[in-house]
C-alpha cells in the first residue's frame, strides 16, 4: 500500500476527484495548504505598501491505494491537475505499513 500525496492548484480539485472516482478510488482526504515554490505570488498593494504573497493557496490530496493502483492513480492525477503552468504542484508517494478502517477494524486493502 502506498500513500499518494498530491499538492495541486485548488481549482483543479474537482477534476482530480472525478478522475480518481472513475478509477474506482473510494476515498480521499483533502487539506488546504499553502505552497512556496518556483511560482511567485502576486504583488498585492494596500494603499502605500506592497506585499508579495510568498505562500500561495494549494490543496493537498491524500489517498491511500494498493500497490497495483499506484501507477494508474498517479497518472490520473497528473493528467487531471496539469495546466502546464508553473505551480501545478507535486505528487509524493510514501510507503504505508498498515491501514485500518475504524468502523469495522478491517485492515489493509479491505480497509480502503
Amino acid at each position, binding site marked *: 500500500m502506498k500513500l499518494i500525496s498530491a499538492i495541486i492548484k485548488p481549482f483543479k480539485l474537482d477534476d482530480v476527484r472525478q478522475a480518481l472516482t472513475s478509477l474506482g478510488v473510494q476515498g480521499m482526504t483533502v487539506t488546504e495548504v499553502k505552497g512556496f515554490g518556483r511560482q511567485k505570488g502576486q504583488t498585492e*498593494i494596500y*494603499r*502605500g505598501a506592497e506585499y508579495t504573497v510568498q505562500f500561495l493557496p494549494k490543496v493537498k490530496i491524500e489517498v491511500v491505494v494498493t500497490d497495483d493502483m499506484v501507477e494508474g492513480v498517479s497518472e490520473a492525477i497528473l493528467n487531471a491537475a496539469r495546466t502546464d503552468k508553473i505551480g501545478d504542484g507535486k505528487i509524493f508517494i510514501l510507503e504505508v505499513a498498515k491501514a485500518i478502517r475504524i468502523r469495522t477494524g478491517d485492515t489493509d486493502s479491505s480497509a480502503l
Partner: protein
Amino acid sequence: MNLLKRIPTGLAVTAIAVLAATGAALAQEAAAVAEETPALSAGDTAWMLTSTALVLLMTIPGLALFYGGMVRKKNVLATAMQSFAICCLATLVWTIVGYSLAFGDGGNLNAYIGGFDRMFLAGLGADTLSKTIPESVFIMFQLTFAIITPALITGAFADRMKFSAMVVFMVLWIVLVYAPIAHWVWGGGFLGDAGVLDFAGGTVVHINAGIAGLVACIVIGKRRGFGSENMEPHNLVLSLIGASLLWVGWFGFNAGSALAADGAAGMAMLVTQIATATAALTWMFVEWLVRKKPTVLGIISGAVGGLVAITPAAGFVGPMGALAIGVAAGIACFWGAVWLKPALGYDDSLDAFGVHGVGGMVGALLTGVFAIEAIGGTPGLIEGNPMQVWIQLKGILVTVVYCGVVSFILL
C-alpha cells in the same frame, strides 16, 4: 460650524456665568441680544437626537470595524477594543471636565480655554436650552465628537501600543488637546473670533486627530516586522461595513452640525454625499490608472477622505464646490497614503494622518476657496474674498503646532 450661529449658542451655555469684559465677549453679547429668545423646537430636537445616534454609530461599530478589518487577524479584537474603550473613557472625561473646558466660560482666559464652572455638568436641568434644543442634547452631540476624535488617532499606532498606555494617553489628550481646540473654534475662543470656518470639525476633529496620529506613530516607532512581514488587511468586508457606517453616520456629523433641521442641514447632507462619492471614485480611478486595478480598500479610503475634506466645508459650499473638494480630496489622500508615507518612511499603520490629516487640511483650505455667501454667510476666494483662505491657513497652523507639541509631550 457657522460662527454667527454658534456664538449665541456659546452664550446660552454660559448664560449663568459673569460675562468677561473682553471685546470678543462684547461682540457675542450684541449678537445674543439681536437674537430672539429661543424656544424648544421639537423638530430640531428630533434631528439632533438622531444625529447624536448617527455620530455614535460612526465610532461603535463603524470605526471599530473600519480599522479592525485592516489589521492582521490576530489584532482585530485589540483594535476594535480601542474604539469601544475610548467611547467609554471619553464619555466620563467629557462629563467630568471636558464639556466644561470646551464650552464653559473661561472668564478672562475665555479666548484660550473654558472654565471649570460646568464640571460634572453642573447647572444642567431638564429644561436648560441651547438655542432651540435641550442643552442635554447639545452636550451629547458634542460628546460624540469628543469620542470619535481620539478613536481616529488609534489608526496610526494600531498593532503596537499597550492598552494601558493608550488609556492614560487618551484621557490626557482629550483634556489637554481636544477640549482647548474645540473651545478655540466653537466655544467662543480666538480661532472662532478670527473667522476661521469649520462647520463640523475639519480642524478640531480631523487635522487634530491626524497630527496626533502622526506624532504618535513617529514617537512609538514602527511595527515589529514592518516591511518584511505580511501586514495585509485581514478582512476587508469588515472595513467595508465600517466605511459604510462612517458614511451614513457622517450625515449626523455634518448635517447635525447645523444644530437644526433646516435648509442648512439639508445642504450640508447633500454636499457631503456629493464630495464623498466624488472622492471615492477619484481614488478608485487614480488607482486604476496608476496600478492596474481598482480595489475595495481604495474606494473606501477615498470615500473616507472625501468625508473628511467636506467636513469643514459642509455648511458653506454648494454642490459644485463639493465636486471640486471631492476631486481634490481623492487625489490628495491617495497621495498622502500611497506616496507621502513610504517616501517619509513613518509607519502610520492605518493612515490616520494620510487620510484624516491630509484630507482635513485640504478641506479646511478649500472651504476658504469655495465658500458661498448665500449658503453659509461667508464668501470665499471664488466670490472674491482671498483673505478667507489666509484665515483658514492660520487655523490649520495653530492647530498643527499646538496639537503636535502637546501630543509629543504626552507620549
